[in-house]
């Protein structure tokens, strides 16, 4: 019989992993459309958390009001990233120009720089401290079932993630913009010829991804109770790892890979001091890039 402690740790690992999954989805969507990486994506997560903080402390809003605020700020921020770091390099929207190496590298750097700027601004404003969210908002009540002990927040992360994934699936398959996104992801030229506006799809993808990321940041901040300006950076790197392991263009792959990373970290955490568990994700990344470069669920392009 597995120790309940181990079970609980694994459950937490799954929950943490789902955070990576949600953030990874944002990255994957962008990658599918632009073949580019958005390194400012982690800041969306951070902004979601900070918006929660501000909503709770400065604005003293009730929880149900904070949620739409986070969504709004998240979407706006995502739009901003696209405008500032990606749009300026997009002079033409044919496939070769859109996904050229020069543009991909330039946007990697520009989004990295933008993320850095945002992080540092937050760092300056809040002096790099870990800031606490008021007790009444937190989801820290313990919850147990089947031998697993978690906090309500950790459970909430899992539940909210599943709900968001369901919404995403709905959007991608049942709304016009979602179908447009899928069309552009699988066949850019075909989509263009069908009259789909590439720029609109790109903006939509950024907004959707940012919504997901911001909500993830919100839930995590409510679960663990504190926020810090650099919290998004570690998450986005692990989300990137999840994206790569998942096969770069596969959404289910990114989700599963995210959970795998979370579980791997939790497992490692049982045996190693916590500082070293950081390396689990990087080790997984390097191993994947070396031995399984196409990831677990690479989709075959038609």
């Amino acid at each position, binding site marked *: 019989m597995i120790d309940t402690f181990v079970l609980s740790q694994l459950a937490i690992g799954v929950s943490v992993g789902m955070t990576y999954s949600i953030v990874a989805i944002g990255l994957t969507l962008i990658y599918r459309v632009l073949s*580019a*990486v958005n390194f400012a994506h982690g800041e969306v997560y951070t902004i979601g958390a900070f918006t929660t903080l501000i909503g709770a402390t400065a604005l003293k809003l009730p929880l149900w009001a904070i949620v739409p605020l986070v969504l709004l700020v998240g979407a706006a921020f995502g739009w901003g990233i696209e405008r500032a*770091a990606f749009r*300026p390099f997009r002079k033409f929207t044919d496939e070769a120009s859109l996904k050229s*190496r020069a543009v*991909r*590298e*330039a946007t*990697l*750097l*520009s989004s*990295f*720089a*933008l993320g*850095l*700027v945002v992080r*540092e*601004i937050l*760092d*300056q404003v809040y002096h790099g401290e870990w800031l606490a969210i008021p007790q009444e908002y937190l989801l820290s009540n313990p919850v147990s079932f089947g031998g697993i002990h978690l906090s309500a927040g950790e459970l909430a992360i899992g539940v909210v993630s599943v709900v968001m994934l369901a919404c995403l699936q709905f959007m991608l398959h049942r709304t016009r913009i979602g179908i447009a996104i899928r069309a552009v992801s699988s066949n850019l030229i075909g989509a263009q010829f069908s009259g789909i506006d590439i720029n609109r799809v790109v903006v939509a993808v950024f907004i959707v991804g940012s919504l997901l990321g911001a909500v993830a940041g919100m839930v995590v901040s409510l679960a663990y109770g504190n926020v810090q300006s650099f919290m998004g950076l570690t998450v986005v*790197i692990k989300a*990137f*790892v999840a994206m*790569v392991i998942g096969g770069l263009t596969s959404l289910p792959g990114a989700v599963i890979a995210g959970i795998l990373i979370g579980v791997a970290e939790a497992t490692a955490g049982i045996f190693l*001091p916590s*500082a*070293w568990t*950081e*390396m689990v994700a*990087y*080790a997984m*990344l*390097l191993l994947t*890039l*070396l031995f399984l*470069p196409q990831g677990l669920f690479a989709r075959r392009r038609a």
Partner: protein
Amino acid sequence: MSRSGVSVRLAFAILLLALVPALLAWAGSPYFGRLAQVVLVAIVLTGALNLLTGTAGLLALDTVVFYGLGAYTAAILSVNAGTSFLVDVAAAVVLTSIVGAICGFALVRLTSIFFAVATMALAISFHTTVLNWGDLTRGPMGYRGIPPVRLFGHAVGGWLESYYVTALFCLIALFIMHRVMHSFYGNAVRAIREDEECALSLGLRTRLMRVQVYTLHAAIMGAAGVLYAHSNQFIGPDNFVMFESALVLTGVIVGGIGSLPGAVIGGIVMVLLPEALREIGNLRALAFGIVLFLSILLLPRGLFSEVRALALFRRDMPNSPWSRRRRVP
């Protein structure tokens, strides 16, 4: 015209070996001596990264790994085994070359952005290791009491002499990088960067050459790390956070990707700018983020572009009868 390349190099050497020390001696403060050495180390780092990211076209964020390996090798050896400066350099170069060759061999076949992220992962892993492997690296407290440069048993006296040693090594490193970049080898590496598949069809050994460049850049950075350790006499994990890699990369981009003069300019700016704007102190990171962003957006070729650099040093192509034949109609 044809002399321009040679005169630039000569002028720079004179600057480094005569003018600057004269200024430093006149100013008389060890602080400026230390600063000058930091600038020199930055130039070497930027130049080496430029070799990899500019000439070879491999966007990399792993500067701190090899720089740090070199620095810690120097620290550990000289503090615990009392080795002299040259031994430290040799040991660091050997170690970073081996590690560089291994990493290079493993990573080089990854395409651009994945190579970049893999190097980022390496950098972060290195930092985490340095921070936590206290037994080896003395962890967060850093390595104190690294002896100053000792050449052939004779302890290099004051900060001015220390500056000379650093300047000399800087010039040697620059010379090596210059030779590699402005030669047929450099040309081949640029061709591989421009179009790998095409370069392969021309018979160039693309993978091998990329690994070679990676190894060379690692070795040079390792040597720079030794220089830093001995001139600063203290190193700590904070010197090797991933952000430092980004800093050096910013220097390369701002100065000019693929151009050695650009890298020199970038290195100088990177160190002196925050010094000049002392008041902004811990806004350094923010400023660099903005500088990097604006650079990529507005001045992607940098302050001194590769095209200009190649034209400037055109006649420096070694042993080429081309410069002789050119007069023939």
